[in-house]
């Protein structure tokens, strides 16, 4: 298979098409605009539909409409636009409709800035919209991984009939990297989501169907919430994904580590470079990278923490003022000292900066 050099946003658009997505609804916002700009040209070539919505409020509701008809569909946006989608995502999750949402995160709060950030972690993994619902959240750390996760995103959405968010920092969307698209176009059969027993549409004699989130009886609504909860528990049991970098297969390091970094997305990539640098100095650091931010790989992280030698610490690094670090603390349950370093506003910590922090934590001399 050949590699092509592509900008992250465009690669994500192509990956969506290869995943069999033919319907896109979205509203322009930096740093994700190349996704709609790519798809407006690409979708007509494969008989697809592109609608530039009047707002993110509308685009997510268009997604609800198409998904309810059993048609694979998606939207993409960046932080302020994702905020506007909160209501719609809550309805879609409540109605158990599959869809994919890309959040190419930019710096906030408010209008913030257009540079990359990871400060929508809470929003993505906790209370985005109202009510007890959850979204599956995937966090790529390279353009290649973003491409690979798009197919997974649609598969998970359809398996669990749940919204899936591909949550990348703007860096992933804006940088160009060589990518390889697995399989021929279409990794998934185009368009149809196999909604034979739930989707609305032409009835041909079958009983009518309703896509609804209103339950006026408290008992029925409680039941509905319990059913959703059981689904989220099932997802948590089966679908966590992570990467452990550093300890295994590392001849010089000998496998063990005295410090465990935790980072996701672009930040994880920077941490890897920093780890390579400090390992060359004989410092033993490793990285735990959650790929699913929700479900968060609590058990795997805890195992990785338990493997830290002695009373070594955990070092969480984020392009935010500290959001994932709460989950890291939950995983540690007080068993480890947790250090944190974060930047905001589009300031991306450099490998040197992270390496320096590692040296400080490990009590090593500055390089």
């Amino acid at each position, binding site marked *: 298979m050949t590699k092509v050099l592509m900008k992250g946003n465009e690669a994500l658009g192509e990956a969506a098409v290869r995943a069999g997505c033919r*319907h896109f*609804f979205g509203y322009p916002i930096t740093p994700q605009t190349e996704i709609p700009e790519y798809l407006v040209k690409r979708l007509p070539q494969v008989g697809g*539909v592109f*609608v530039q*919505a*009047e*707002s993110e*409020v*509308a*685009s997510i*509701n*268009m*997604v*609800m*409409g*198409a*998904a*309810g*008809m*059993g*048609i694979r*569909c998606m939207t993409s946006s960046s932080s302020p636009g994702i905020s506007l989608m909160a*209501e*719609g995502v809550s*309805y879609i999750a409540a109605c158990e409709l599959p869809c994919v949402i890309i959040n190419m995160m930019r710096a906030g709060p408010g209008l913030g800035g257009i540079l990359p950030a990871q400060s929508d972690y809470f929003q993505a993994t906790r209370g985005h919209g109202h009510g007890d619902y959850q979204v599956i959240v995937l966090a790529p750390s390279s353009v290649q991984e973003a491409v690979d996760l798009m197919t997974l995103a649609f598969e998970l959405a359809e398996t669990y009939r749940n919204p899936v968010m591909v949550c990348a920092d703007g860096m992933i969307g804006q940088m160009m990297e060589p990518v390889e698209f697995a399989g021929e176009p279409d990794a998934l059969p185009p368009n149809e989501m196999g909604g034979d027993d739930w989707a*609305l*549409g*032409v*009835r*041909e*004699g079958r009983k*009518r*169907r*309703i*896509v*609804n*989130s*209103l339950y006026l009886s408290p008992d029925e609504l409680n039941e509905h919430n319990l059913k959703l909860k059981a689904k989220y528990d099932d997802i948590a049991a089966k679908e966590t994904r992570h990467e452990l970098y550093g300890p295994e297969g590392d001849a010089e390091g000998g496998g063990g580590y005295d410090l465990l970094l935790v980072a996701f997305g672009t930040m994880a990539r920077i941490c890897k470079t920093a780890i390579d640098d400090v390992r060359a100095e004989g410092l033993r650091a490793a990285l735990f990278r959650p790929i699913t931010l929700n479900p968060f790989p609590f058990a795997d992280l805890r195992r990785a923490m338990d493997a830290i030698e002695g009373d070594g610490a955990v070092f969480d690094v984020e392009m935010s003022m500290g959001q994932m670090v709460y989950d890291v603390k939950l995983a540690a349950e007080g068993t480890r000292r947790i250090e944190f370093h974060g930047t905001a506003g589009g300031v991306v910590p450099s490998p040197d900066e992270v390496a320096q922090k590692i040296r400080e934590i490990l009590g090593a001399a500055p390089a």
Partner: protein
Amino acid sequence: MGDIHIAEERCKGCGLCIDACPRGLISFAEDLNEKGYTYVEFTGDLEQCTGCTLCATACPDQGIEVWNKRGKQTFENTTGLTERMSHYCPGCTHGIIHRITAECLQELGLLDRTVGVAPVGCSVLAYEYFNVDMFEAAHGRAPAVATGAKRARPECIVFTYQGDGDLCSIGGNEILHAANRGEKITVIFVNNAIYGMTGGQMAPTTLPGQRTSTSPDGRDIEATGHPINMAELLATLSTPAYIARGSSHDPQHVLKTKKMIKKAFEHQASGTCFSFVEVLSTCPTNWGLAPQESGDWVRDHMIPQYPLGVIKQPESVS
């Protein structure tokens, strides 16, 4: 001699049929029905009933069926609605607008491929009543949901059914842009000049001086602006559309409005254009008026503000 059958158990005692009968053949019973409503009975001389169907046309609750002199059924409950009793207040014309919408879909043979979108408002439960596949959308977002549904399956007939708070206030942007994109959907816009479901607050369509719970001294146009004439506003867009306004306040107007709704669905079925029918409607409970008085209020106060008729047609037709 015609024949009429009044389903006592469906009657909410609004009395709209009593007013509708040109020969005064229907009146209130002495008793209450099982639900506790003073139901109506046919008390006149059956010889005098011509089977004109005005009583059934005025009934919001699918409570009356009619046969003509030759024994032919002239008014039959539509299969486009389920048999479920609606939750609407007695005399509220949501039920009538549901019925004529469903009748049009049935008569055009579209029921099997229609997908409706219910709003948030009194008609939030419309998905229980329309005998078609239904979405229940977030407040005001029905035109966006309908856009997604129609773009996904253009072979389906997609309609939204929305109140004035839903469509004109919180959903102003969604309706404006669905119309401007010329989405091939049909919008049934029920204008009762008030927020019914939340208990009678001011809507963008509330008339100047009209008292509501959030305009207790009457709507002050200096502070809250004038009523929005949504049909006219949408008609200013250059995109081709079928836009009409009817009323549900008496059987004659109900029949005229039904023609508009039918036209709207025909335009969608032929892929011609976006179609929008505003229907003036009553809210006896929150207006504090009896059902019959509510109809009069529509005639005397709403129609002067909201003129009836076809407001815009796609060029090929006009």
